[in-house]
């Protein structure tokens, strides 16, 4: 695939590209892209970002794009792996520094990432999560190489403390010359626009999604003689586990036939255990520990009411999953949560024990009076809200838009860095950008793009990984190379 956009330093010698291009272009739609998802967070790590990247990639492949994923090595899982539909994942040998995020020097990852971007003929770099150093590195390198960049922000930050002031400055630097930014909720968009001092026009809101077929109700799994409240979250401060430790004794004293099921693990588990011990609630409060994603549904369907006590949340997939399983959701009114579900499906409370208890009591009384719609009906409403196909469709529009934009030339980029990020930070990062460019020049001199092998396109239902691939013979030699790598 030919390079688009044509940044000054992005024009590669295209002689080597042409011999794979014609065949592929003829079958592709005119607007397919070669997308590289970059994030420190991917399977086998579990979480919202990981699932988002995987599902989005699968749906984009379905729509005819070529997608690869780049992440860092997880223990023994290193090198190249292929997932469903030939989704290729590069696990790069980079050192993990903290919380599964790699260390960054802004330079050390350039040789590897450049090699991947060139051999995979990537046109758009899509980085995920502002916690991921690798994602920011990739954005930095991609801009140096003249590739289009998209960034998805999955989290909310404050503005008050020192650490957020510093990270917000880095985000400003990282996003000031990024083509387009995607946020998962309107609150998240407001937050990102403020943090990185962005033009809101280049920030799109595309929510997360939930696979509704994974989260189906099963009313026979729950016992209607008792009321069960389900909580599924990591047991950490930010998820409001402290609030939960106040709610449990309060409600258990009030309602004798009320049980709690709590799924998830974390440092705050100990306070729940203390509460359970102190109030003798061993038979009524079940702590399940860490749950695998596939088990979440089986836990959810055992309950009547889902409780979310998060103190901050950009989107909150958990409440959508719970609603999709037909549970009545009670949640704190923080972050983007009020945008996620319509008022008749969620009871919003202030983040305090008193307010949450009132919310839960309201849900219990509705349940007892039979005012709640049956789970099947809730499921049927919720399943239309968020689907990955819709997310992919909207993300594709962002790619189309970005592909038509020009990447900033080096001089413009330096101007932008200096004018946008403040005199000191701007100049420092402009200097780093120049060094990065010189490093890239050096790498191109050592290994010219023309002698880097082109990787075989493995993705899609007709990709090289299947036996019906029409290009299998054509790119056989490349195939050999990429297999041995």
């Amino acid at each position, binding site marked *: 695939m030919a390079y688009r956009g044509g940044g000054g330093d992005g024009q590669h010698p295209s002689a080597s590209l042409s011999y794979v291009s014609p065949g592929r272009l003829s079958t592709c739609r005119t607007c397919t892209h070669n997308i590289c998802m970059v994030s420190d967070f991917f399977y086998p790590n579990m979480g919202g970002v990981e699932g988002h990247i995987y599902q989005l990639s699968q749906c984009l492949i379905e729509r005819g794009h070529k997608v690869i994923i780049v992440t860092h090595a997880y223990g023994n899982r290193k090198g190249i792996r292929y997932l469903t539909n030939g989704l290729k994942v590069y696990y790069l040998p980079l050192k993990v520094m903290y919380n599964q995020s790699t260390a960054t020097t802004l330079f050390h990852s350039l040789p590897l990432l450049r090699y991947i971007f060139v051999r995979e003929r990537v046109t758009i770099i899509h980085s995920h999560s502002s916690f991921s150093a690798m994602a920011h590195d990739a954005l930095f390198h991609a801009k140096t190489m003249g590739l289009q960049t998209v960034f998805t922000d999955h989290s*909310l*930050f*404050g*503005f*008050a403390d020192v650490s957020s002031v510093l990270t917000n400055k880095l985000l400003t630097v990282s996003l000031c010359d990024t083509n*387009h930014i995607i946020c998962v*909720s*309107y*609150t*998240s968009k*407001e*937050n990102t*626009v*403020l943090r990185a001092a962005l033009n*809101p*026009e*280049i*920030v*799109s*809101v*595309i*929510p997360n999604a939930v696979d509704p077929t994974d989260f189906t109700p099963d009313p026979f799994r729950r016992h209607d003689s008792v009321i069960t409240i389900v909580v599924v979250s990591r047991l950490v401060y*930010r998820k*409001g586990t*402290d*609030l939960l*430790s*106040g709610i449990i*004794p309060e409600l258990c004293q009030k309602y004798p036939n009320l049980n709690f099921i709590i799924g998830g693990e974390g440092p705050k588990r100990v*306070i729940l255990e*203390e*509460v359970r011990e*102190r109030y003798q609630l061993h038979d009524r409060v079940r702590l399940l520990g860490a749950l695998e994603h596939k088990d979440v549904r089986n836990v959810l369907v055992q309950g009547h009411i889902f409780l979310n006590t998060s*103190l*901050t949340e*950009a*989107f909150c997939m958990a409440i959508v999953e719970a609603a999709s399983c037909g549970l009545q959701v009670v949640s*704190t009114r*923080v*972050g*983007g949560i*009020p*945008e*996620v*579900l*319509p008022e008749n499906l969620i009871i919003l409370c202030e*983040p*305090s*024990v*008193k307010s949450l208890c009132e919310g839960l009591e309201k849900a219990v009384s509705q349940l007892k009076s039979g005012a709640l719609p049956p789970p099947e009906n809730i499921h049927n409403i919720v399943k239309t*809200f*968020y689907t990955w196909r819709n997310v992919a469709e*909207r993300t594709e*529009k*962002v790619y*189309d*838009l970005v592909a038509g934009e020009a990447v900033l030339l080096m001089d413009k980029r330096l101007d932008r860095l200096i004018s946008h990020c403040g005199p000191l930070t701007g100049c420092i990062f402009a200097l780093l950008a120049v060094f990065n460019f010189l490093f890239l020049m050096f790498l191109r001199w050592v290994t010219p793009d023309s002698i880097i092998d082109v990787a075989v396109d493995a993705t899609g239902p007709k990709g090289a990984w299947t036996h019906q691939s029409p290009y299998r013979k054509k790119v056989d030699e490349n195939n050999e190379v990429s297999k041995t790598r």
Partner: protein
Amino acid sequence: MCAQPVTNTKEARWQKVLYERQPFPDNYVDQRFLEELRKNVYARKYQYWAVVFESSVVIQQLCSVCVFVVIWWYMDEGLLAPHWLFGTGLASSLIGYVLFDLIDGGEGRKKSGRTRWADLKSALVFITFTYGFSPVLKTLTESVSTDTIYAMSVFMLLGHLIFFDYGANAAIVSSTLSLNMAIFASVCLASRLPRSLHAFVMVTFAIQIFALWPMLQKKLKACTPHSYVGVTLLFAFSALGGLLSISAVGAILFALLLVSISCLCPFYLIRLQLFKENIHGPWDEAEIKEDLSRFLS
């Protein structure tokens, strides 16, 4: 990005919800964008003279360090006899002790439940031990060079000033560490004095000025602010006078430091408030305002 007709966007009102497909592009910016943004919610309004008054705590501590060093210098030069210092220190401590109870009418004592006998006991124990160990203190740092001792004392006194509890609620504040650093500095300096009696008197004086004096100050400030201002001024002038007798340049610099801390810094603080831009909004992490420990205790 959605190719929707423009007329449609005018009819439908944009909602801040994600679950509905709205006839707007994904990067649409509504007028309501950032409407929940709040600025400087918790910002405080400062009054100039109130800030000046509060800055007196810093002035007091700087003066304490200054007075301590001046007294040490006089002792080292042999201009001040240890008996005199001990006598004056004892007398002022007694006056301070009486004042300490008089100011609040004995309320603080009732609250803490501490008897006078206990006070006397700890004072006696302390004086006996310091006196007994003063020959050891004297020879303790003999093998260390005098320059090292001076450098160490300077760092320790600076540390004392940095970590002192000026009433701010910050992680760096540690009154224990602060007091320990001051005592360590006094031990260092005392070891360079001519005799062990000097060392004993010096350490006792350090305890009085770094441990007991701030306690009395705190009470003065809380109960009788006017007399506190008077005491601060008096203390500052006596520190300046003492320094002047040693070095005129030092006294001028010290006076400039005091003036800038008590007058210029508050002025700057108030001026800089104008540039304060603290942003709050729905993305802020919620604070748990209740006391949840009651469920566990």
